[in-house]
Structure formats: structure tokens, C-alpha cells
């Protein structure tokens, strides 16, 4: 067996050493009635068979190399520089575990310290942890943290926050005495600070907004922060880190906690995971934050080194008094993001963000040039926008799919009032020709629909 080195002779020797007749002896403490050594599983495959099988399975999926894609909605198709995968494929990084032994884990520890530093720079915050599971769970933890800090159990979740994130928050707080307040998002598709102020009763511990929001638009973070802070609550901002290459960071606009999905930073979409929860906040909350933190310190000879620190917040020490139950996190994804941000650098990240912006604006212009398509909301947007369609979004997507194109996100899934809208996204990976093709197909659909309608009307008339 490929992965098991023990030969029959080795087994014999070990059994003899421990005074057992057979390995079955070693399981005598298991009640006989519960012993079950038969499993109904497919037979073992040789590596070449399993490689073939998995390749075939993978080819039953339509990959983004070969299918133009206009989906964003929380997972983005960005270019992953070759360097990233080469680094995270180093055995020393991916076959080690949590750096409990700093003397032989400085590689992981220093990269986490660099990750924390990069996330602070990006978000404009003071401290960042070593990662959470994903953007949604990072948000849920932030909401819990803010409730603990403020001792207020109500949270205001703007409906312009990713619907899945809101559902995850709901799930997380099921057992806690939390209340979800009404929604301050009006027909503009963004949070109205005035409207928000009206929701901010004194039991509100935190307000959650997304920047850019789920519809791609930019919330007025600074004005919202003022309103939130005036009410004694904390402001949690969910971000897209690529957008922060271009946008004023929430930390400069009054955010108390910044969370987000780090996937765009060098992590492939992979059908939704593994991703990277970002979590950054103010230094004063250091003892309240969930997750691991790495700090710099020195050894006996004054040499700089890095260690896991503030561990007394964590479950392995504080157990039920811990700030969270998180143990394993998304370290390797955090490493990918660290490599990505180092590689992009000061100007590169901005340049990629600009390309996304340019492509998305070109796409919006072109799509809305097709009769019957118009933007659902006004106001500045980054790489996504909601467009109302003259044809059912599901029908559009089905037609695009036939053409090998992955269409937009159907907003009617979550917003009944947007049943006629698609959320379209463009990044640096979207080619002009593909966008033009999309627009051409939309045009064709509209023409056909008109013809059908006309024909139908013709029949009625007859």
C-alpha cells in the first residue's frame, strides 16, 4: 500500500513487542457489537487510475479558462500570478501545522506577521488576525465580538450586504440572544445614513455594511460611521480587498471592524473554497478578537523572532471563555494572499483594480445600450453592477450557457423586488471580445423577444 510503510514483518515485530497476537487485539476495548470492519466503498485505485478518474470528473465542469464568466457576487475570477502557487506548493509551508513550536516554524510565523501587516495597510486598520474561515464567518464573528464589546445584542445588517453573509450571521447567533434589526437600505440600493439613524436604538451593538456593497456600489462609509458612532454602536465593514487597491480604506473612514473575503488575493475560485476570512480591527480590541495572532519578539540573544501571541483569548487555553471556537484557520490561503500582495505591490494592486473598474464600466455601458437594459441603481460602482433586464434573467442565463458563457447572478434569488435584475461582474480577466459577444447575444434575445411578441400580437389580432 502506497501510503503505509509497515510490512508484514514490521507488523509482526511490533505486535510481538507489545505482546499482542493480532491487531484485532488492539481493538478489544471496542464493544464487540459495534465492531465493524466492513465498509461498502468502491475498491482502491492505483494512482494512475485515480488521476484519470479525477481528471474526468473535473472535465465535467465548465472551467473559467474556457468559459467567459460574468459572475462575481462574492467570488472573483482574478489572475493568480504563477509565483503564488509555486510558493504555497513548498512542502515546508503546506505540510506543517499551526506554528506551536516557534523555533522550527519561523517561516509560517513571519509570513503571518507579514499577512497581518498587509491587511492592516490594505484596510487602514491597526490589527489583523491570522485569518478566519471565509468572509461570511469572519463577519459572523465580528458581529459577536461587537456584541461582546458593547454588551448590546442587536445588529443592523444592511440588505446591501451579501445575502449569504447575512444568512450566516443569522445562523451563528441562533443560540445567542441576538436581534436582527430592520434594514436601512432604500430603493437606492445603498444604505441611507439618515434612514439608518432612525434604526439605531440603544440596543444596537453593531451595524454591518459592505463596501463595495453586494450591488457593486460604494456605501458612504464615513457618513455612516458618524451615525453609528453617535449611537454608541460599532461599524463593521465587509470589503473586497481588490477594490481597496483603489478605494479609500474603511479604516480611514471610521470603521471599527473590517472583515472580508480574501479570495480575490491570489486564491482560485475553486467552487467556493477554501477561501480566506479577513479580520481587522482597532488595537484596543486585541483581547476580544477571534483567531490567531502573531507578534514579533526576541530570543535570549536579542534576535528577532515571531510567536503566536495573545493566546489567552483562544479556545485551547480559555475553553468556554474563549473569544471564539476557531482553531485551524486558512493559513495557506493567507500565505497566498501575502505572496499576491507582495507581488502586486504598491502600484500593481491599484492597476488591477483599475482594470476591473474599466472593464466593468465598459460592460455596463455596452449592456445598457441594449434596448430594455438599464442599471438598477445609480451611484458609483466598482467591478459589479445590477442591471434590470427586459427578459427573465434565468432565460438570459440559459441562453448564454448554451453559448458557453457563464452569465450573471440572478438577484431575484434573494431580492424579490429585483426579480428582473442580473448582477454582472467584470475583472481584469474579462476580454473585450467576450463582453461584446455577451452584448450581442443580449441584443439578439431582445430582437427575438420582440419578434415573438409581435408575432403573438399578430395572432391575437387575427
Amino acid at each position, binding site marked *: 500500500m502506497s501510503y503505509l510503510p509497515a510490512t508484514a514483518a514490521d507488523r509482526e515485530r511490533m505486535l510481538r513487542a507489545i505482546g499482542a497476537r493480532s491487531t484485532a487485539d488492539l481493538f478489544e476495548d471496542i464493544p464487540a457489537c459495534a465492531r465493524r470492519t466492513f465498509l461498502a466503498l468502491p475498491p482502491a485505485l492505483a494512482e494512475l487510475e485515480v488521476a484519470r478518474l479525477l481528471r474526468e470528473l473535473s472535465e465535467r465542469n*465548465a472551467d473559467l479558462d474556457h468559459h467567459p464568466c460574468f459572475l462575481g457576487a462574492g467570488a472573483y475570477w482574478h489572475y493568480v500570478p504563477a509565483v503564488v502557487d509555486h510558493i504555497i506548493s513548498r512542502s515546508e509551508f503546506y505540510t506543517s501545522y499551526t506554528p506551536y513550536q516557534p523555533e522550527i516554524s519561523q517561516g509560517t510565523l513571519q509570513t503571518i*506577521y507579514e499577512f497581518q501587516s498587509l491587511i492592516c495597510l490594505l484596510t487602514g486598520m491597526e490589527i489583523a488576525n491570522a485569518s478566519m474561515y471565509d468572509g461570511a464567518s469572519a463577519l459572523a464573528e465580528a458581529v459577536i465580538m461587537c456584541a461582546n464589546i458593547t454588551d448590546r445584542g442587536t445588529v443592523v445588517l444592511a440588505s446591501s450586504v451579501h445575502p449569504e453573509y447575512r444568512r450566516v450571521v443569522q445562523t451563528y447567533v441562533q443560540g445567542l440572544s441576538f436581534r436582527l434589526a430592520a434594514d436601512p437600505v432604500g430603493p437606492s440600493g445603498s444604505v441611507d445614513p439618515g434612514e439608518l439613524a432612525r434604526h439605531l436604538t440603544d440596543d444596537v451593538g453593531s451595524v454591518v455594511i459592505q463596501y463595495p456593497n453586494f450591488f457593486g456600489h460604494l456605501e458612504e462609509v464615513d457618513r455612516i460611521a458618524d451615525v453609528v458612532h453617535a449611537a454608541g454602536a460599532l461599524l463593521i465593514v465587509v470589503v473586497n480587498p481588490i477594490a481597496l487597491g483603489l478605494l479609500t480604506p474603511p479604516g480611514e473612514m471610521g470603521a471599527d471592524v473590517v472583515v472580508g473575503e480574501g479570495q480575490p488575493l491570489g486564491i482560485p475560485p475553486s467552487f467556493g473554497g477554501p477561501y480566506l476570512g479577513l479580520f481587522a480591527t482597532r488595537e484596543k480590541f486585541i483581547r476580544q478578537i477571534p483567531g490567531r495572532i502573531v*507578534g514579533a519578539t526576541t530570543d535570549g540573544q536579542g534576535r528577532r523572532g515571531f510567536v503566536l*501571541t495573545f493566546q489567552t483569548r483562544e479556545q485551547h487555553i480559555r475553553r468556554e471563555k474563549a473569544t471564539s471556537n476557531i482553531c485551524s484557520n486558512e493559513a495557506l490561503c493567507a500565505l497566498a494572499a501575502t505572496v499576491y500582495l507582495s507581488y502586486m505591490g504598491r502600484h500593481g494592486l491599484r492597476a488591477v483594480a483599475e482594470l476591473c473598474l474599466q472593464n466593468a464600466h465598459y460592460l455596463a455601458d455596452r449592456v445598457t445600450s441594449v434596448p430594455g437594459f438599464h442599471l438598477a441603481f445609480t451611484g458609483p460602482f466598482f467591478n459589479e453592477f445590477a442591471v434590470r433586464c427586459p427578459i427573465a434573467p434565468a432565460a438570459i442565463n440559459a441562453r448564454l450557457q448554451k453559448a458557453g458563457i457563464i452569465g450573471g447572478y440572478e438577484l431575484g434569488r434573494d431580492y424579490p423586488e429585483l426579480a428582473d435584475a442580473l448582477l454582472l461582474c467584470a475583472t481584469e480577466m474579462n476580454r473585450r471580445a467576450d463582453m461584446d459577444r455577451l452584448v450581442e447575444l443580449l441584443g439578439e434575445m431582445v430582437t427575438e423577444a420582440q419578434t415573438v411578441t409581435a408575432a403573438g400580437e399578430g395572432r391575437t389580432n387575427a
Partner: protein
Amino acid sequence: MPEPLIFERSSPGRQAATIPPAEVPTVAVEHVLPERFLRRDLPLPEVSELDVVRHFTRLSQKNACIDTTFYPLGSCTMKYNPKINEDVARLPGFARIHPYQPTEMVQGALQLMYELQEYLAEISGMDAVTLQPAAGAHGELTGMLMIRAYHTERGETGRSRVLIPDSAHGTNPATAKMVGYTVQSIPSDSRGNLDLAALRGAVGPDVAALMITIPSTFGLFDERILEVIGAIHEVGGLVYGDGANMNAMLGQARFGDLGVDVMHFNLHKTFTTPHGGGGPPAGPVAVKAHLAPYLPVPVVARRQAPDGSVEYYLDYDRPRSIGKIRAFYGNFGMLVRAYTYIRSMGAEGLQAVGETAVLNANYLMERLKGAYDLYVDRRCKHEFVLSARRQRRTTGVRALDIAKRLIDYGFHPPTIYFPIVVEEALMIEPTETESIETLDEFAEAMLAIAREAEENPELVKGAPHTTEIGRLDEVAAVRRPNLRWKPS
């Protein structure tokens, strides 16, 4: 050689990234984004591609890892991570698919997930599986929320207590608390079993659940597991099985057959997905039928398509579900790896894993139990717990010192000071992928250190002596926190 921070390598104007020109007619950024939204500066490092590569490659070499070092970190199952798993997870058809693609365009991914759900159910003897939880602890949260939903639906809202053995991993009590329960710790007896009398004394109608790790973090199988589980069920409580130590159970006995109601797997332990320096993990949860309605959405399901073919889909239509536990569907890349592993091993392979993991642990325990105190002297499962209390008392050498000294011998130390109820604990899990030669080398090192502790305790207390950096000042790290690089 010490490696500077990537920021310290920065030089203005350098850039690794190459950026393609826009293919579309461009607009002035300020025209579409108001000034106030435009950030002034972003002082990311400015480095060349070689700087990036050299920096992180050098840093990598400062890590011990499974691929270079025996890594018997108890409770973590640091087994070999097959290379083929890494390759298949990177296939474009797996790595480059968007979670919201129409299901017709991701049938391969859904089939894989569906089959993995089935395999995990079979392996654990449970009825239904969700692959969504991102980690063991996340699986615990998912499972405990389901227990809560179950009791709530039955109107049993008075169930507020969760019983947890004192040997449990910290995530168990932390999770119970996140779900709104109060935690009651149950002691272990001298054979490392749960103290049945104490348990019986603790059960009552307000008990929501027992969270129990099988085998326990002592590396022991509770000899009265059926009574333990029965005691909870008798009072209407449910049993959460922490499956982090499931490696020992593979093909030997199933959680479901023991009476467990809900459990999680750690794919990054039992099913060889790599630990990644701390993650990404994956913690699928399996339940008995009575808890299946509460599984988080979506569940991957199978049906007949209109044309008669089999079709896989995401089932969101589950009104009693606890809801969503994370965005999208789980750490899919890890699921691909675990699936690959199960297909590589087959039933007999997995059974051999369980058998060999336990055999290796018992062999190593046998070799070490003379020189160190054994917490409980009976057959262990996948791991065993030594105590260095003898060393500490006679020589002042602590478990920490022994761990550090092992580094000098070329080994990654075991888990130390856990389980917390064991004084000066050394928790050793060799796994099945290590050879007897490696076990023997490790045993020799441990025995040598036991001798050193007597003959030259300072040598051990001053360890490690062979690393680039010595023991670090953790107190200073908290007193004067330095948690990030700041631009000057």
C-alpha cells in the same frame, strides 16, 4: 540566516507584477469614482519577482514539516499528504470554477461532493452528511446548532447544559458556549474513561448534549462507551461525537453504530488534506436521520433529470435547516483531496490505516513507557499521553524542555500540556504513514533525552541548541505588542 521582512526589502519603483493594457476604451477614474472614494496611497512592498520568490523560499526553509520531519503532534494526525491529491485539486475543472455557475456546468464537482457525502456516511455509520463546515470547530458549531434546533423544535427549550469530559479539546466547550449553552465538565476516571458515576450524577432533563471525543484525547477508547451514550439518551440528550481522532477508528467501528447522533470529521487529519501551516481544514458533519432535516443548506442531492439521466443539484429546499454556516458550499479544494484519498485507499486500505495507526502508537508507547510516566497504562488507540512529571520532580526538566530538545534530534515535538488534566503532558501520535525505523529513531531520541534530563538537565532546559533562533520571549510579545510592520 535571518530573513528581513518583505517590507524591509522594498525599494521605491520596483514591481514584480506585470499589468496588461486595458482592451476597452477607458474612462478617467475620477469620472466614475468621486474623489473621496479614491485612496491616497497604499504602501505595499515594492519588490521584484525574484525578491518575492527568494524571500518566501528562504522563509519556507525555516519550517519543519511532514515532508522533512517526523511530526508526532498529538491530536493533529500529521500523516503523509499524498502528492496526487495536490495535483488533482489544481485541475482547471476544479480550481477554476465559480460557485454560482449553473449546476449543469458543474456536474463533476457536484457528483464528487455527493459521492463524498455517501462515503463519509458509510465510513461513520451515519445517515446524512454536510460538507460545508470549514473546520473541525466549525463542524462542532454546525452540529451543536443542529442539536439546539432539534430540541427547540420539540419544545425542549429548557435544555441548557452541555456535558464535556475534562479531557476534551478546547473547541468543544468554546463551541457549546457559542451556541448559548452552559458547559459542565465531567471528570475522567483512572482508566481514562469518562467517570460514569460522575456522568450519571450530572445528567438530567436540562442536558442538551454530551460532546465526546472518540477515541478520547488520551488516545483511549472509552470502555463503557455504550453506557455513556445510553446515559445521555436516557434523559433525552443527544451525543455529539468529536471525530478529530477518527484515524484510529477507520474500518474498525463506526460512530453511528455506537449511538452517536452527530459528529464531525477532520478531513485535514483523517483524510490527508494538508495542514497548510494552520489550514485550510475541512470539517464535514454527519448526522443520524433524526437530525438530517436541520443540516445547513445546501445539501448536494441527486435526482433523475427529465431526460432520464442522473443529475446532481444543490438542495436549498430544506425548511427546517439551521441555515447557512458559511458562504458557498465548503472548502471544496479540500473535499477533492479527501475524495481522492478515499478512492485511492478503498475500504481495505482505510481499515489498514486504522489498524496501523493504532499498532504504531502502541509500539511507540511500549518503547517509551519505561522512561516516562504513562498517563493510563492500557492499550492506546492512535496516540498516547506521557507525563514528564517524574522528570520535572527529579530534575526540573519540563515537558516543554523535552519538546525543545527533540528539535535538536531532528524531530518535531509532540503536543504538550494537552490534555490539560495531565500534568506535563506529552501527547504522541505517530500515524500510520511512519515506518518502524522512524518510530525507533524517535524512541531512541526520547530515551536519550530522559537520560540527559538526569545527567545533564541544563542541556535539556537550554534546548534547542541547533536552531537559528532560540526560545522566544513570549511575555514581551504580549507586554509590548508588535503585531504588524508600520510604514515609517
